[in-house]
């Protein structure tokens, strides 16, 4: 008898995979460190506290830079900058991208074609190149312009993803059913479209977060990010470049920080999908 009640467990509990836990731990560590710098750092980040280019020691965990500033302090502040750029850029990319994507999905064929072609052209530009153009076109390099530039550059990818996902949801019978029962467009977006595209979008946001962190480091490396004395990881790498043979730790330490945050974000992104999508939850 097919109509019998399937015997399901009370409510499926989320199983946390090791990858997700590692990702969450790495990201969490950076968040804690970033927040900590708001109230405390081991040394004054601009003060010369030791010999120049000193190797790691108990007093200076990551050594010092060419001006004798504590590198660990700068890396901690770098985490705060990386995270704020990621949050800001993803928020901008999400706001613009989801709005444009939904409009395209609901628009008439002609409008949709124009929007889709525009997005394809924007996506054909490398994100970093687009961000560099935007920074170059603005008054000058600052943390704000970097966030704005990366956010705008990433929004086209979010928009295209949203458009495709929303289109697929809109083709489903439950959308027709909702329309037959008299639900308006806004209601359909709120009740059906957003919840159904959310699991994929949130994963993409987490990935975009990682890309934004890398993009910020790249911009700073090129001198287009937050200006000194902001201790962005990209700037630390760039400064360490000249002395990489005499003081390799100046490049290795911010490199580890950057890689660990991005890997953490990617692992976290994978795990998030299982959290957001009930059909993927394992019993």
């Amino acid at each position, binding site marked *: *008898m*097919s*109509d*019998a*009640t*399937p015997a*399901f467990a009370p*409510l499926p509990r989320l199983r946390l995979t090791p990858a997700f836990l590692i990702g969450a731990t790495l990201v969490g560590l950076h968040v804690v460190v970033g927040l900590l710098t708001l109230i405390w750092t081991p040394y004054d980040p601009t003060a010369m506290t030791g010999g120049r280019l000193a190797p790691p020691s108990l007093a200076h965990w990551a050594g010092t830079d060419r001006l004798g500033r504590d590198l660990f302090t700068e890396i901690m502040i770098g985490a705060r900058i990386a995270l704020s750029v990621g949050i800001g850029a993803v928020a901008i990319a999400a706001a613009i991208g989801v709005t444009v994507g939904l409009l395209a999905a609901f628009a*008439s*064929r002609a409008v949709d074609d124009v929007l889709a072609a525009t997005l394809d052209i924007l996506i054909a530009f490398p994100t970093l190149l687009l961000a560099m153009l935007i920074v170059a076109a603005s008054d000058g390099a600052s943390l704000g312009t970097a966030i704005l530039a990366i956010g705008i550059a990433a929004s086209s990818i979010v928009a295209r993803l949203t458009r495709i996902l929303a289109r697929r949801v809109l083709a*489903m*019978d*439950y959308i*027709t*059913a909702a*329309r*037959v*029962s*008299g*639900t*308006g467009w806004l209601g359909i977006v709120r*009740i*059906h479209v957003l*919840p*159904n595209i959310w*699991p994929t979008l949130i994963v993409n946001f987490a990935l975009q977060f990682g890309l934004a962190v890398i993009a910020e480091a790249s911009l700073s490396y090129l001198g287009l990010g937050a200006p000194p004395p902001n201790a962005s990881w990209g700037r630390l790498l760039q400064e360490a470049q000249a002395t990489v043979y005499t003081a390799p730790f100046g490049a290795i330490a911010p490199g580890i920080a950057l890689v660990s945050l991005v890997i953490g974000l990617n692992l976290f992104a994978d795990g998030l999908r299982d959290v957001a*999508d*009930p*059909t993927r939850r394992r019993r």
Partner: protein
Amino acid sequence: MADLLTIENLTIRHVGRPLVSDVSLSVAAGERVGLIGESGSGKSLTALAAIGLLPDGMTASGSIRLSDREVIGSADRDVAGLRGTAVATIFQEPLTALDPLMRIGKQIAEAVRRRAHRDGRSVDVQAEVLGLMVRVALPDPARLARAYPHEMSGGQRQRAAIAMALACRPSLLIADEPTTALDVTTQAEVLTLLETLVREENMGLLFISHDLPVVGTAVDRVVVLRAGEMVEQGPIAEVFGRPRHPYTLGLVEAARAFDQAIGAAL
């Protein structure tokens, strides 16, 4: 008695090519009308046109009156008011007809709330949802209301979809192949449920199917479509008992031959 749905000389074109031509039918309150024909004969298109939801690029001509309001040519805004009050729909595949990420109870509640909002009455949504679930004979409603569609059986999903349609309290129910995706036992149960509901609520039912035996038990009158054209219509006994059109005759004989083959095998 005024007809809930009157379709006259409906023609649906896609880029000039007619997909449905010159179809007329009507459904009165308490009446069950079958629309049968093979795949691609324009059954579902006719139903979509009736609620003004034809896919982009298709145009309808002729006349469709839903609850005494003309659907063809009127703005979507005007027709939207009829949807969910004058008419509700049940689809073939209940898995795609239910939002996969929403608990069943919440989906039914949305329909209940929408209808209550339109009527300007306040309802105990929770109680009404459970009541509807009991109506469609869903077992253990309190627990099933918290289930997601993928956690239910096909028959339960279709019952939930029927509950959502009922929540709209429509005067006309359009059922587009509601039993095709179900196994035979469940089919019979869902058909019985539909028949009971239509009788008790005095709804009109437009039942779309390609399955002759199913239509035979579910409706009073039948319209036969073939390649977008109406080949025959009339009371079920008349059409199936003395088919006039060769196509209907072919359908009926095929079904009869199948029955006899089963009879011989038993």
